[in-house]
């Protein structure tokens, strides 16, 4: 957005805001920072002025307040920005309504030269204006023959490019305004990247001054940036409080703290809730929570802005809080004025829990028995969960989930290996092996992959690069891939972190054993990782802890695995708990479930922390966590929405409706039609969820998104609906042939002499786990009676049920 346009908009906004805020009762004013130190002639400080900071009607008053300076020769202020004008001290007075507050300002070093610092200002200016982003000059091949390092991660390269390339034709130090480096982003000459600078905007001023000063590099010893912090801390703004100024303070190696807001790049996690201007002004776009990410060089900081809108008709119904999960979720919902749905029916719960835990539909017998149970609903639901958790079907289904993530396919593990590894996963789930032990065993496994199936993790991950990315995504919940080539653009992970982690996995050796499809995994005594950009030999690095020395002869993986699974590790328990939550609830507290980052915070941090504590406290029992989640009212909420949660997709105010997965759907169709699918090389009756390897060329499963297990990511399973799926269900051979088969349920029931009513009852119980409703039965009977061929007509009824949303979706 151009500065001039922004100013006009702000001015207009000021008038609007002024009229809104005219009625704002200002009981208290606070200002941040409370006192200001400016150094040099370019010293600048953005103020944050807040009205009613500790109250529900908190407002940002930065542009509303009236400002005055006690000495304009020392410091000036306009629109909440203080600028140095000369050495000395001054006081800025701030007034809004009846309230007044003042800020002492000290200016020093004004008479000293303050040349632009290349490393902390020029690079920041290029980043803020987007010159060095991946889509432009920061791409590996640059643009238009001009290549910069991505987001300034390689300053020496940028220096050479800016100062030395093509005989320095991009800049004119004698006439800086004629520099192509400025003219192009100002659109004074054609520029494929469009306008990236406005005259006298902060980035333009920095670049221009640097050119005018001769494009110097600051001397050694110039203070470096150590960290940044974004203010204010998370803030909830209600009706009328639509605007929030942000301030970014940078801490430098000499201890100085300076305002770097003007050169900070800002992003919002949800533009439909909060937009942000280049100058750090957040504006309301919708209702909800948004995370704001501030990036300055390679440092990042976040804050959260919540926009609430008063709902006049909303009245919290105070639903029962059966568990701590309910307390934490409902607290958030109440704050956001979102009404949770009602409790789901027993039928819905039976179907939902059975699908979530075993991947199959309840059998008609199970459905009938559950309905007939006279015990208290909560108790019988809890007992159902226990039965399902103890069943082999649960182990089959959840070992399938692990197989997806661990990339269990025959290309990676061989046709023998997939069977052995899957069996081991089955036993892990069946025996509720503590997840810390499970992961530790995977990461530190050695020996024959056929004797010790856990070692197949290292058969699948063939080198340390793959191991870093896979391990980080699976067990830390971190997508660290970007840091392979450069410091992560949106996260704190650096290339050093990436290659330091790789050092833990470098010494894994693999060799044949003499048995077909078997491989021996062992630890080698040598092998180092070199950081490709710096050439440094990397020590093992534990994220957020730093480098560790590993004794010669020790298995570095053990060091890593010990760190990973210790209860204090900030990643593992939260990541695993989030993943399990996401599996049964349909959405992670952090979503995607393997994408933990500052700019993607949990929708309910307290809930996530609680689940992580439950997991560690139970000895990392996944069964315990599942039981805990499914005992909550939150899990048992209906999928039917109300007027106050109709647009909620994040805060778990209702059950998530989601389509059955490929395997669930195929198995469901088989169970309704009574005709199992025949998979090549597997015994008859094998369910799709029990397949050890995605079958090649199975059209139905592929169309419905079965992953090929090439990625350690939940995202590989496609959940998008498409036309092919519709055609498969409406007219595809799988549904058609199973309905038509003489060996299927329908034909068998007819031959047994069942009446139409009985067949319809059986179909509804098998497919939907509930009795048919009178209206539904009437419609179905009418269709059958009207048909010329009874068999075909009954098939039609079954087809209609299979194509209904109630069948296709979990709800």
């Amino acid at each position: 957005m151009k500065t001039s346009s922004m100013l006009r908009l702000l001015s207009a906004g000021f008038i609007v805001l002024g009229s809104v805020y005219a009625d704002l009762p200002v009981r208290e004013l606070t200002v941040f920072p409370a006192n200001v130190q400016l150094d040099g002639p370019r010293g600048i400080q953005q103020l944050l002025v807040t009205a009613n900071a500790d109250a529900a009607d908190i407002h940002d008053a930065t542009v509303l307040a009236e400002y005055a300076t006690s000495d304009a020769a020392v410091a000036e202020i306009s629109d909440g920005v203080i600028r140095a004008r000369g050495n000395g001290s001054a006081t800025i007075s701030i007034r809004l309504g009846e309230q007044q507050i003042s800020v002492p300002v000290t200016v020093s070093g004004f008479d000293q030269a303050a040349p632009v610092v290349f490393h902390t200002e020029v690079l920041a200016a290029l980043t803020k204006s987007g010159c060095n982003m991946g889509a432009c000059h920061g791409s590996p091949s640059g643009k238009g023959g001009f290549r910069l390092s991505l987001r300034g991660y390689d300053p020496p390269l940028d220096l050479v490019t800016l100062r030395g390339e093509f005989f320095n034709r991009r800049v004119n130090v004698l006439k800086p305004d004629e520099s192509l480096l400025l003219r192009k982003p100002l659109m004074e000459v054609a520029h494929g990247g469009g306008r990236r600078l406005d005259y006298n905007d902060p980035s333009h001023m920095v670049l221009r001054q640097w050119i005018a000063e001769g494009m110097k590099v600051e001397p050694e010893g110039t203070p470096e940036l150590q960290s940044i912090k974004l203010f204010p801390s998370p803030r909830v703004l209600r009706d009328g409080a639509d605007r929030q100024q942000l301030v970014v303070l940078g801490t430098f190696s000499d201890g100085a703290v300076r305002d770097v807001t003007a050169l900070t790049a800002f992003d919002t996690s949800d533009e439909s809730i909060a937009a942000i201007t280049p100058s750090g002004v957040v504006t309301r776009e919708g209702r909800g929570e948004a995370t704001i990410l501030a990036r300055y060089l390679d440092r990042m900081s976040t804050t959260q802005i919540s926009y609430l809108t008063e709902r006049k008709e909303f009245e919290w119904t105070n639903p029962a809080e059966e568990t701590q999960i309910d307390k934490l979720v409902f607290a958030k919902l109440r704050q956001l004025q979102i009404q949770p749905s009602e409790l789901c029916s027993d039928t819905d719960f039976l179907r939902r829990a059975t699908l979530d835990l075993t991947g199959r539909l309840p059998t008609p017998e199970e459905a009938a028995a559950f309905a007939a149970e006279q015990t208290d609903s909560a108790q019988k639901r809890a007992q159902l969960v226990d039965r399902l958790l103890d069943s082999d079907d649960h182990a089959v289904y959840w070992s399938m989930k692990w197989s997806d993530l661990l990339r269990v396919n025959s290309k990676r593990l061989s046709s023998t290996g997939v069977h052995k590894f899957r069996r081991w996963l089955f036993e892990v789930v069946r025996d509720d092996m503590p997840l810390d032990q499970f992961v530790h065993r995977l990461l530190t496994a050695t020996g024959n992959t056929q004797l010790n199936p856990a070692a197949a993790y290292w058969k699948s991950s063939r080198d340390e690069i793959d191991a870093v990315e896979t391990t980080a995504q699976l067990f830390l919940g971190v997508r660290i891939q970007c840091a392979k080539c450069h410091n992560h653009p949106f996260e704190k992970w650096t290339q050093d972190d990436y290659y330091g982690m790789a050092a833990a996995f470098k010494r894994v050796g693999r060799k044949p054993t003499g048995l077909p499809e078997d491989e021996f995994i062992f630890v080698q005594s040598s092998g180092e990782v070199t950081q490709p950009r710096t050439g440094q030999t990397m020590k093992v690095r534990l994220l957020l802890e730093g480098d560790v020395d590993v004794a010669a002869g020790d298995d570095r993986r053990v060091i890593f695995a010990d760190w990973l699974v210790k209860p204090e590790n900030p990643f593992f328990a939260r990541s695993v708990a989030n993943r399990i939550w996401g599996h049964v609830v349909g959405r992670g507290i952090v979503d995607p479930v393997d994408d933990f980052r500052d700019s993607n915070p949990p929708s309910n941090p307290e809930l996530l922390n609680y689940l992580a504590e439950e997991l560690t406290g139970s000895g990392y029992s996944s069964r315990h966590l599942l039981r805990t989640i499914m005992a909550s009212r939150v899990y048992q909420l209906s999928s039917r929405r109300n007027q106050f949660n109709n647009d909620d997709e994040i805060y778990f105010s209702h059950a998530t409706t989601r389509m059955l997965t490929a395997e669930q759907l195929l198995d469901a169709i088989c169970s309704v039609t009574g005709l199992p699918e025949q998979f090549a090389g597997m015994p008859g009756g094998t369910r799709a969820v029990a397949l050890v390897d995605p079958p090649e060329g199975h059209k139905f499963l592929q169309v419905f998104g079965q992953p090929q297990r090439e990625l350690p990511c939940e995202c590989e399973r496609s959940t998008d609906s498409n036309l092919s799926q519709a055609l498969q269900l409406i007219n595809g051979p799988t549904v058609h042939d199973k309905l038509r088969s003489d060996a299927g349920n329908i034909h068998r029931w007819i031959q047994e002499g069942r009446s139409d009513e009985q067949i319809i009852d059986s179909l509804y119980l098998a497919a939907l786990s509930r009795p048919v409703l009178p209206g539904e039965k009437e419609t179905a009977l009418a269709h059958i009676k009207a048909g010329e061929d009874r068999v075909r007509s009954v098939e039609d009824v079954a087809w209609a049920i299979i194509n209904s949303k109630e069948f296709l979706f979990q709800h």
Partner: protein
Amino acid sequence: MADSLPKTDSLRRFFGRSIIACLLLVRFVTPNASGQDPVINRIDCAGWVPGTTVTATVRGSSLQSALALWTPLGVLRPVEGSDLSKDQPVSFSGALSADAVPGIYPARMVTSHGVSESSWIVAEDLPVVALTAAADARDPGQELTLPCAVSGHLTAVTSRFFRVQLEAGQTLSGEVYARRLGSSLDPVLRLLGPDGGEVLYSDDQPGAEGDSGFLWIAKQTGSHLLELRDVRYSGGERHHFHLRLAHAALEINAVHPVIGTGQSAAVVLQNGAAAGDAVVAASAGHELVPVSSPIPDAQGSRITAVVVVDGIVAAEQEPNQTAETATPISADAVALAGGFSEAGDEDWFRLSAAGAGKLLLTARTRDAGSPVDLVVTLFDAAGKQLAESDDTGPRDAEIEFAVPAAGDYLVRVRELAGRGGAAWTYAVDLTLDRGTVVVTTPADRLNIPRGGSSSGVLTVRRVGYGGPLKLEAVQLPAGLTMQPIVVGSRQSTVPLTLTAAGSGDVTDADWGTFRVRISAPDNDAVQQTLQLVPPPPPKNADEPFRSRRTRGDFFAGAAPGLEFSLRTEPTVLKVAQGETVSIKVLATRSEGWTVPVEVSLAAPADQLNPGVTVTAGSMAENELEVKIAAAADAGPGPCVVFLQGKSKKDKTERTLPVPPIQIEVTEKAAAEAAAQEQPAQQ
């Protein structure tokens, strides 16, 4: 003629310390016969019970003209009345030796067009039970009374089901032999309790090449169902199994995988407890031989195997986990042996060298049926590491080290992945203060075309000994011949060539086992050791599986003659330094084979004595003069010229060996003196 199972004592008498029986050669460059070698996919037999007459049916390919099914337990003949003219399953019958030790033995099919690779059978002393149709389905499953053994095979996507009645607290033990018999079945065993729930799942046992076994105590009284299937649900003609079940622990391991001839074998159960007396089958040396131990209070034996070597095997003495407590090894030991009783164990040994010389340490684990991946490390007495080895290509660890002086040296062995238990045993062949000749070859069989020859390559490695070696066949079937040869000191690639007599039907004289004796003509102290190279593993589970199990003796048989055969005149001659001699290579051709035969060296030319060159060429007709020249400074002594003839017509290409030509390079002065003496004598 096939030999009967030799006794251990007579074997030891027959082969002294300085010779070695080894037959190893037999991955032959020559395409044996015309690709018609019989192939055994499996042998169906209700039970190979020593002391009984058994009937066995061989299934495979190229089975026509079957003559015999050979095993060391006895030779079976085709059942009378069988139509042997077609390529179809053949049934054999014959008596088995009564004193055979239960365990795994080879079996080979002999036909008039060649002999097969080894298949493997189990000589069984448990009550054998025939497989019935009831085993095809879970309900009913075949009812079994224990102890018992049952054999069969699996087709694709099928299982076999067996029912066993158990009392709560009763032991059930089972082991499946499949991969160890060369079967392509990768078995898993699954036990379901009386309520149908799974109570046990057994997949791979360490050191069993992928076979399964278990020991379990019943928790409930009632009918238990045992399911046997392939881990991938695959099946076929090669997916055979031999299942043993008992109410006592079946699985045993030899405390040491290698023993010396005359030494006893100690065996233990999986929990490390002693398993009682063990009987070792007789051995031709350097092969896995059965070891059995009777099951207490039950009919039948537990079975395992050891490698028997000629000489003393020194056993570890615990504790020996440190250099200070290293087990001292006597000077006359040819191997050391031990085991890693628990995970993380490592063992130390102390050797005392009498002087400078060569030290050779060669690990034996996987070839001896042990799952250990051994790492061998050599230290000097001060603890400085001198060498370390994990694998040597496809083989186990080996260290060859030039010992600089007399003194103590320490050897540390450990398992690469730090595993341990009763099955985790090892041995290390040891050569110190003496020369050694190590002969390696992949073990298989040799089919020799009638009237012609076949050869296979021995790789000979000399350690601490650089002289000539004599190779001769022992107990060769009467219809086959092998000219004894003395190979030169540089010759390490030695095609061993056998010749089959020219005509007539194949008789029992034309096939059987034999051994190769290798000796150093001028040094009885040289120790010969044998390293068997098992067949290469299949690339994937869909290829036929071959067990790593190898024999110490060799098998050869006559096969139909080929399009041509080659011989030389003379086969023995001398050539003096500075002289050139000629030999004739003569061909016998079948009608129509008129294409040229290209004669060339079959072994590297630089392995001949220095200065000796051989000039061959193309044989258009049936005779070719080959010149052997010795330079004036040619190295004196014996060596063997190995030639081969290659010929192609249409799509048929043959490379056939020429029987070896033994030459002796003499010094010129000696030759002149000899020449002068001759006229004088005349």
